[in-house]
Structures are given as structure tokens and as C-alpha cells.
């Protein structure tokens, strides 16, 4: 089972990257992002990427780094504020953008990973994002059909993982990492701590090993905070 274990981001992504591919990137804002793999994707020079991620990072951290190098052709996101590079490229027509409501994006990944090609939701009915999509009535209410989403590769950040590939997230860093992991044809997980099988509580695992194709322990996570809000002690 240790065949899943790699030394670092570069080796873990070896052979998996190609121009024009779709990457699902976990994280919410800068919280729980696969920061080492984002750097490795940048360094690989792979381009024309379609990236599904709730956000697009900030100018100099997270997915913003791949925008700076113009490796991204299209983003599928729910919110892309906090990023001037994004805004500039988008307004210049250099970057495609597909907005998905946050819950629809999460559910599309969950569905894609679960073999569900499409589902119905009330979210977005009557809004421009539902235009051109099929709608259907159930019990007198209108719903819009949304498609399951899969990607060539999911890049995921977790807290702990075992060498069999079982994974545990920490606090709100879980976010999109779990559903996106299931929707990648290949899923690579970077963890803060890699442990032996049996060390994680089998009732407490968030992502079962079957979804983890490769795993590595990242060194020196920056874990940058976007808005540091504090109260008086």
C-alpha cells in the first residue's frame, strides 16, 4: 500500500500533468489549499488549464500564482474577489470564467465522484446562471438540472493521512477538499503529517483510501491567513 506514497509534490504529480487538462483544486479562500502542488503545477509549466476551485486565490498565493504565469484558460468558481490578477485577465478577455453557486459547485463534484451525471436543484432558478439549462417541475416547484463534474486530476490538502491513503482534515480546512477528491480521475493528497495505517481512528476518517491515488507529506506549509480578525483577550 505504500505504493501510494511519494516524496514531494513534484514526484507525486509526475506523469499526471498535461496541457488542456481539468484540475479540481480543494480549499476555500486560502484555507486548506494544496499549496505545494500549486507550486509544482506552476513549475511544471503545464498550460491551458481548466481549474475548478471555489476561489482563485490571491495575487501572490494559491491559485493566483497560476494566473500570474497565465497557465489557466478557464476557472470554474463561485467567488473570485480578492484577486486583481484575475480581474485584469478576465476583463482583458484572456481568462474564461464559469460561475457556479457554491453549493452547486460542491454538489457537482460530489455527484461526479458518486456516478451521478446530473441532479436537480432550486439554486439559481430564475437567475442568469440557469439560462440555457434544463428545468423540470417537481411537486409544483421548478428546479434546474446541473451536471456532475469530474476532473482529470484532483489536488487536495489534508491534515493527516496514512500510507494506505486514508485521510483526515482539520476544522474548516476540510471544505471542498473531500468532495473534489472523489471527483478526480486521479487524486493526489498533500498532508501535514503522514502516518502508518492503523494510526487514524477508522470511525473518524473523512476521505477513505479508495479516493487517494497518491499521497505525500508537505514540508513547511505557509497556511497564509486572508483576513486576520482578532478580538481582545
Amino acid at each position, binding site marked *: 500500500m505504500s505504493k501510494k506514497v511519494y516524496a514531494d509534490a513534484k514526484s507525486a504529480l509526475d506523469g499526471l500533468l498535461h496541457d488542456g487538462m481539468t484540475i479540481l483544486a480543494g480549499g*476555500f*479562500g*486560502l*484555507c*486548506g489549499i494544496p499549496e505545494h502542488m500549486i507550486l509544482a503545477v506552476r513549475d511544471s509549466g503545464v498550460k491551458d488549464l481548466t481549474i475548478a476551485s*471555489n476561489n482563485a486565490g490571491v495575487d501572490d498565493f494559491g491559485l493566483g500564482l497560476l494566473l500570474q504565469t497565465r497557465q489557466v484558460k478557464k476557472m470554474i*468558481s*463561485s*467567488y*473570485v*474577489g*480578492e484577486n486583481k490578477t484575475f*480581474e485584469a485577465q*478576465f*476583463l482583458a478577455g484572456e481568462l474564461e470564467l464559469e*460561475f457556479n*453557486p*457554491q*453549493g*452547486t*459547485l*460542491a*454538489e457537482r*463534484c*460530489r455527484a461526479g465522484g458518486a456516478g451521478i451525471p446530473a441532479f436537480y*436543484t*432550486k*439554486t*439559481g*432558478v*430564475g*437567475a*442568469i*446562471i440557469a439560462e440555457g439549462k434544463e428545468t423540470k417541475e417537481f411537486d409544483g416547484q421548478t428546479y434546474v438540472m446541473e451536471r456532475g463534474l469530474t476532473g482529470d486530476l484532483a489536488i487536495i490538502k489534508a*491534515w493527516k493521512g496514512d500510507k494506505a491513503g486514508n485521510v483526515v*482534515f*482539520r*476544522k*474548516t*480546512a*476540510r*471544505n*471542498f*477538499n*473531500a*468532495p473534489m477528491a472523489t471527483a478526480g480521475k486521479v487524486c493526489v493528497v498533500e498532508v501535514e503529517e503522514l502516518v502508518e495505517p492503523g494510526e487514524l481512528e477508522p470511525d473518524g476518517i*473523512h476521505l477513505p483510501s479508495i479516493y487517494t491515488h497518491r499521497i505525500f507529506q508537505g514540508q513547511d506549509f505557509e*497556511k*497564509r*491567513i*486572508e*483576513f*486576520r*480578525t*482578532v*478580538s*481582545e*483577550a
Partner: protein
Amino acid sequence: MAWTRDEMCARAAQELEDGFYVNLGIGMPTKVANFIPDGMDVNFQSENGMLGMGSFPTDNEVDADLINAGKQTITETPKSVYFDSAQSFAMIRGGHINMSILGALQVAENGDLANWMIPGKMVKGMGGAMDLVAGVKRVVILMDHNAKDGSAKLLKECNLPLTGAGVVDDIITELGLFRIGEGGVHIQELAPDVSVDEVRERSEATIVTQ
């Protein structure tokens, strides 16, 4: 005398009930948490994957893995539980959240809501707003009664792109508390010394008195 922002938040907090699960939007709605009546148990959901959200941390408590949907650092409480984004929106879409309090650009008298984009300006995205207004049991809008240029935000029809159609239940502005109902926007309560005429003057929507 119109309500202050604090009074508006306090008024919104009075709409909460003991045991409610509540999602607060970014901005003014976040401050409603400061006005929960003593002894009332309200559980705040953060759509990035948490129930039982606590206040901002002290300097020592700051944790990069613990943020709210506005990406601000927060704390946990004894009731806290974490989950992934699919589960978070399963809760929201599934109607398990009792109330969401959100800001708005425009509200129409049929309950249509516009709060996510202004054509011609850079669009940041809807985030979780479309899911919240579609799924949460009761949607309360907390907003200034008028736009900065003085134009009405309570309209007959929204002219900005919608976040959701027919989704708003109540609106709280500095002028009072209003409810979407038969024939238009019903005045439920007015701030001190605010008249029905003033509400009508500052709104485009049909204003209905009880």
C-alpha cells in the same frame, strides 16, 4: 427617527428563536450575532463547513484552519462541528437552516432578490448566496432603505440580475420591518417617528399597511 445600524441588527436578532440554526451573510448581517438575547441558544452556520461558529479569536488563538465564509479567522464553541462543503450545502439546500440574514442591492415586492452583480462592474461571484436564498426556510434582508444615490432598493421589479426569484420573506431597513405578502410589501413595524408616507416616498414597491 430611523434606526441606527446597531438598532437594525438588534431588531433582526429579535426575529431569531431559541434553538434556531442561522446563517449570517457577510457585512452588516454578521453583526446580528452581537445582539442575541441573553439565554437564547442560536447556532450559527458558516457555509464553508461549520456549525456552532464562535467569535473572533484572540491573537493567540488565531488558526489558519479555522475561518468563516468571509475568510475571517474565528473560534469554535462546545457545540462546534465541522463538515465538508457538500454536506454544508446539503444542509442549506435541504431546508435545515431556519433563517438566513443577508444584505441586498434590490428587493422586489414579489420577493425577488438581487444581491450579487451589477452589470458593467467586475463580478466577484455569488458565493453561497444563491444556495442560501433558495434553500433556507426564512430569508431576512438587512439593508439600507435606499442606495447611496438615494434611489429606491425596494422595487416593483428588480432590474439587476437576480440572486433568486420570490425568495425574500422579510426586509429590515433603517425605516422598519417589512414583509413580502399579498399585493406588495407589508409594513410590520416602523422605526420611531417614521411615517408610512416616508416609506412610500423612499420605496418604489407597493407598500401595504395592515
